[in-house]
């Protein structure tokens, strides 16, 4: 075979040398994929990521604030989780204590949690309020504006607290 640039004949050794960086990139890629599958196989998921078990409600009516995420967690996603948690814990400490309000974080990529994507029509990391009646979700709302209010923490906290308050007062 002749080299397109120089017109010189290229031997098998030269051709292999030209292919070497490409093979290296492919090998590194395969290695990374293998590392990922190994990490998943050894089960490094945390307790918070374990499948959510729907235990019978202590109260006939309660509101569950779900934060749904995936294994990949970006900076904005972590901020949304932290702000949401802060909004709920600072304004509804009593309701959290007596079980009228429950906070849960769920990884939708963990086996057993995939159904949440369909149940609540999820398309990204989401904060969802669920009104649970006798252990079954009766009504839910995806607080979609969290993404738009992320740059303004005060408005973000007020939005989450107002929505949660409306849900609690309507059903408690």
């Amino acid at each position, binding site marked *: 075979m002749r080299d*397109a640039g120089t017109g010189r004949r290229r031997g098998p050794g030269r051709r292999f040398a030209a292919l070497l960086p*490409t093979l290296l990139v492919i090998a590194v890629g395969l290695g990374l994929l293998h590392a*990922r599958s190994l990490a998943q196989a050894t089960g490094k998921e945390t307790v918070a990521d374990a499948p959510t078990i729907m235990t019978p409600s202590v109260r006939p009516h309660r509101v569950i604030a779900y934060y749904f995420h995936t294994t*990949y967690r*970006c900076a904005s996603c972590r901020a949304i989780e932290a702000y949401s948690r802060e909004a709920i814990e600072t304004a509804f400490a009593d309701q959290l204590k007596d079980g009228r309000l429950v906070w849960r974080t769920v990884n939708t990529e963990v086996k057993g949690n995939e159904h949440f*994507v369909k149940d609540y029509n999820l*398309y*990204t990391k989401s904060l969802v309020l669920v009104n649970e009646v006798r252990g079954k979700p009766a009504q839910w709302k995806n607080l979609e504006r969290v993404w738009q209010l992320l740059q303004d923490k005060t408005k973000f906290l007020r939005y989450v607290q107002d929505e949660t308050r409306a849900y609690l007062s309507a059903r408690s």
Partner: protein
Amino acid sequence: MTEPLLAAGSALWLGILTSISPCPLASNVAAVSYVGRRVGAPHRVVLAGVAYSLGRALTYVLVAAAVVTSLLSMPTVSFFLQQRMNQVLGPLLVVAGLVMLGWLRLPWFQGRGTGGLEQRLAGAGIPGAAGLGVVFALSFCPVSAGLFFGGLLPLATGSGSRFVLPAIYGVGTGLPVLLLAALLALGVGGIGRTFNALARFERVAMRVTGGVFVLAGIYLVLTHIVGLSI
């Protein structure tokens, strides 16, 4: 009259919000370096920035069309684009960057047409920028998914402007890249003219673009394939 203007302004703002969040930072940096690499010709940089934004706009119009006409379900499209596209984009950027740097030769591309792949990639110019806009817009991140599917689509369907608003949103997502690239081109171009060293600047810019592509690709590989939280 004010309602459509308000809707258009909101769509543009949602696009800008998407682009300034930390999530698409890697692809934005890669886009700025690619679009702004022809520092000696500011008008070409601006045109490439416009092409990049239009590429993004086209993608969002097509995704909106697929979802609004119920051709595809929203969760399916969204999760597929967030997970799979970023997994593909990482290795693709690494390979493209290595080719631009001249460190990687793809033998099956050599000799076809005029020049090697690295020349064609580096010299792809305005169509290349539009293509980059399409590919980068397809690799959704959680922020763009949240703002596009949760903010833009309800706004577009509610105001009866199902395709114009996604296009405006797309331009908004490309706007900061366009502005940064223009500033970069004007600034560096000015310095280059002062010191009569434009050719050297352009060679450096090309190398920087290749390097940025490799780094952005490695970042995406580590976060989306290896699963590291960075």
